[in-house]
């Protein structure tokens, strides 16, 4: 479980996150959604410590993350896996070396154990036999899957995904969403996905938090989001005219 308690953040005097509180459920796929500029990525970066909070607390189970010093934060992050928007695979390493990197850095596994783990992770994301390719040799979807394999290689308790579908076609987006959900269930991780893709929300949104103008505007799940009467959320969900016409709530 991840508790966000009254966090705020300003950049150059402009408040981008304003007293936001919510709880992300353990072992589930939690989605933080919102328009561009609503503060989703800033919230995520505060959750993983890439930005500091101006006020408030972020609590992982029983650990108050925001009160840890830099060294303890660094240690704590070993329990976190992250899928970045662009994959963030290391260009100078092959896919196998990318996935093996956190294991070589922090585990006492032998080379053969690391190799087995790499192959296991590649199998999970259906990228078998791509071990020796470099990131530049992969398609966008394959890069995301390889990055996902790296994120789960050290068996993290928490998985963060920053817009995992950006730049992908709808079919590949569905594959990535399904993978994220499958891995969340299989490894019993607490997963947090930042997205504005409504397909993802409907497909894997076990718990959904909607941010609007730096504030928490709505909280629910993939079933309740379609029938909400929250005007701002409906505008996001039914952004396209086509869907707007199909919306049972005609007073948009």
């Amino acid at each position, binding site marked *: 479980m991840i508790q966000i308690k009254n966090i705020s953040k300003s950049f150059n005097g402009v408040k981008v996150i304003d007293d936001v509180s919510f709880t992300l459920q353990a072992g589930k796929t939690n989605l933080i959604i919102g328009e561009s500029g609503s503060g989703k990525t800033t919230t995520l970066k505060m959750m*993983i*410590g*890439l930005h500091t909070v101006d006020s408030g607390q972020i609590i992982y189970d029983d650990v108050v993350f925001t009160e840890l010093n830099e060294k303890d934060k*660094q*240690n*704590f*992050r*070993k329990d*976190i*896996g*992250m899928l*970045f*928007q*662009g994959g*963030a*695979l*290391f*260009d100078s390493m092959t896919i196998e070396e990318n996935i093996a*990197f*956190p294991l*070589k*850095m*922090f585990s006492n596994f032998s080379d053969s154990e690391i190799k087995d783990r790499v192959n296991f992770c590649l199998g999970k994301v259906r990228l078998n036999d791509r071990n020796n390719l470099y990131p530049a040799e992969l398609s966008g979807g394959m890069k995301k899957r390889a990055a996902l394999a790296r994120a789960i290689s*050290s068996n993290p308790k928490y998985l*963060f995904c920053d817009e995992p579908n950006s730049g992908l076609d709808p079919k590949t987006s569905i594959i990535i969403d399904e993978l994220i959900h499958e891995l969340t269930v299989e490894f019993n991780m607490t997963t947090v996905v930042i997205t504005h893709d409504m397909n993802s929300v409907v497909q894997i949104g076990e718990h959904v938090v909607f941010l609007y103008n730096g504030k928490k505007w709505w909280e629910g799940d993939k079933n309740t989001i379609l029938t909400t009467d929250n005007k701002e959320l409906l505008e996001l969900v039914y952004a396209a005219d086509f869907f707007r016409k199909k919306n049972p709530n005609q007073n948009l």
Partner: protein
Amino acid sequence: MRFLYHIGRYFILMKRALAKPEKFKVYAKQFFFEVDNIGVSSLGLITIISFFMGGVITIQAAYSLTSPLIPLYAIGFTTRESMILEFSPTIISLILAGKVGGNIASEIGSMRISEQIDALEIMGVNSASFLIMPKFLAGIFINPFLIAISMFLGILGGYIMGVATGACSSYEYIFGIQAFFEPWKLSYAFFKTAVFGGIITSVAAYQGYYTEGGALEVGRSSTRAVVYGSILILLANFFITKIVFKH
């Protein structure tokens, strides 16, 4: 004030960069990779430049030293002193500031804008240490070797061109490069070379590490790495020389 801000931030980054490694084996492998990347890959450039510069110094010395009172072995002596004291340590380091410094800044800057540095941090890796320490130590370690090779090739180039053009005889040149030799000058040259190696790598790494924005900013970081690296090399050269040559 901006100047002081950068100095402070540079030293804070270097403190992080020189922190105890998470895993010595991984860092050691990275160190040898950087020795190859920084050192071995620069050998071709250094060979060509040093050889021809040695030859040019010899020919210019022969042209300038026309007085019958100055013995011809002074040509070899001049070439040796120029190569050991200034050309190899300083000019080659300035050239490396362009080649190696630009390369390091663009490499780390690209990693910054493509979130690869964030990825390292999220894994629990001290990104400053992992990215900078091997480069910094490799720069300090390999630069004196490169400069030793440059000195040898420069003096060899002077010999071949001096003898081939008839500027001096083989005997006079070899006598000249041995004349009045003071070994401490080599220590001075290697010491300042090691300092320059540290400056080239750390300044470039600093510029790359704090890159913000996109491809344009990576280019700017790379340019700043070369400019500031070169200025700091010249400043360090001045102060080290002033301290060593007390008159």
